[in-house]
C-alpha cells in the first residue's frame, strides 16, 4: 500500500498507509491527521484541505484540473507548492509522497 507522509505545522510527522484510489485528503481525515479540515467533503468547493507538496514531488503529481487553482486563491497562504489534497489521488506512483499542512485552513 502506498505510504503518504503528512507533516503537521508544528513539525510532527506521520507516515500512513493509504489505499490506492483514495485522495490524500481522505487518507488524512480517516487517520485523524489534524489540520486538514475538508469542510466541503472533497467537492473542490472550499480550499480547507490545502497542503504544500514537497518540492521533488511537485512535477510527479497529476496536473491540476480546472478550478483547483481558482480555489487555491482562497486558501490560507498558498504558494507554488500548494495543492488541494482532495484532488490528489493516491496510487502506487505516489508511494512516498510528502505533504506539509499549513498553519491553518481558513
Amino acid at each position, binding site marked *: 500500500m502506498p505510504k503518504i507522509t503528512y507533516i503537521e505545522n508544528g513539525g510532527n510527522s506521520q507516515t500512513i498507509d493509504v489505499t490506492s484510489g483514495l485522495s490524500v485528503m481522505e487518507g488524512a481525515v480517516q487517520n485523524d491527521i489534524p489540520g486538514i479540515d475538508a*469542510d466541503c467533503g472533497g467537492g473542490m*468547493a472550499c*480550499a480547507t484541505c490545502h497542503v504544500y507538496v514537497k518540492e521533488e514531488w511537485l512535477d510527479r503529481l497529476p496536473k491540476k484540473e480546472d478550478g483547483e487553482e481558482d480555489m487555491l*486563491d*482562497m486558501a490560507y497562504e498558498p504558494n507554488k507548492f500548494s495543492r488541494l489534497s482532495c484532488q490528489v489521488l493516491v496510487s502506487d506512483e505516489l508511494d512516498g509522497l510528502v505533504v506539509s499542512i499549513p498553519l491553518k485552513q481558513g
Partner: protein
Amino acid sequence: MIKTDTLIIGAGPVGLFCVHQLGIIGLKCEVVDNLDKIGGQCIELYPDKPIYDIPAVPECTGEELTNNLIKQIKTFKTKFHLNERVEEIKKVEKKWHIKTNKGTEFEVSSIIIAAGVGSFEPRKFSTRDADKYEGKQILYSIKDKKIFKEKTVTIFGGGDSALDWAIELSNTSKVILVHRRDEFRGMQASIDKVNQLKEEGKIEVYTKSQLSSVQGKEKIENINIKNDDESIKKVKTDYVLGFFGLIMKLGPITEWDLNLDKKTIPVNTENFETNKEGIFAIGDICTYPGKLKLILSGFHEGALAARGCFKYAKPDEKYRFEFTTSSKTVKGRLGVKE
C-alpha cells in the same frame, strides 16, 4: 421579541425542507442565516454544478434545487432573517431565548440547527496586525463606496469581487490591484476591462504578489507587497480590501454547551435531538452512527426533527401522523384547493 414555535438556523436545502415538514404538522417557524441569500452551500459554493442524487430528480443544479425548495414552502410565508448570525441561546423556563448579532430576539419552544459546516464568513488576511485595522482601513466587504473617493485603495484578490470593485472604484479612487498569480478568474469581460484600465494607467496591477506586512500606528501608512521572486514593493495606501471568498465557521454554536465531535453535533436517530432538550441538529452538522453527508439524508432528518419539535410546541396535544395525499388538515395547511 419574536414568538414562534421553532427557530431554524441555516437556510440551506435541509433547513428549507424542514420548514415544509414543520408547516404540514402545523408548527410555525422562522429561519436565520448568515449569508445574504437563501440556499446555503448549494447557492454559495455550487449554484451551477449539477447534483445527481436527489430522489426523483435525475439532475439539477444547486440553484434549481434551492428554487424548487423555496417554491415548495412558499405557502407557509416563512420569515427569513438573512445576513444574521445567531449569537446566544438561553433556556428560560420551558422556552429558548435566542439573540442574533443584529439584536433580533426570538422566543421559541425548540431550535433546529441546520447549519452545515457553519456560517459563511469572509476569508481574511493572515498578515500580522491585519486584524488591528479590520473594519477601519482593512475591509472585506463594502458598505459605503463614498469613503474611497479621492483615496488610494489597494485591492487583493483575483475573482469577480476584486475585479468588479477595482473597475468601479477606479472612477474616483487610485486603485492598486494585487493577485497571487498572473491569471484572474473572473468574467472575461471584467478581465479585459481591468487590462484596458491598466493600459490607460488607471489601475496599477501587481500579480504573483501577496500582502507581506502592514505598517503604521493608529492608522495604516504603508503596506508591503511581496512578489514571488522575493522582491518587496512598498505601497502607500488609505484602504486595503481583501476579496478571498468565504469560509465556513462553526462560530458561536461551539459555546452553547452542545456535545461536539470535531465539527459536528452528535444526535439520536429517533428525532435528531442533541444533548440539550429542545435543540435538534440536522444535515451536515449532525453526526450519528452511519451518518451520510447527503442532502437526501438531511431531508429525512428534518422530517423526524420536525415531529420531535411538536411535543415542545404543543405539550397538551398528541401528534397524529397524516399523509399529504389524503389529509384534509394537511392540505389546508398547504393551501391546496380541492
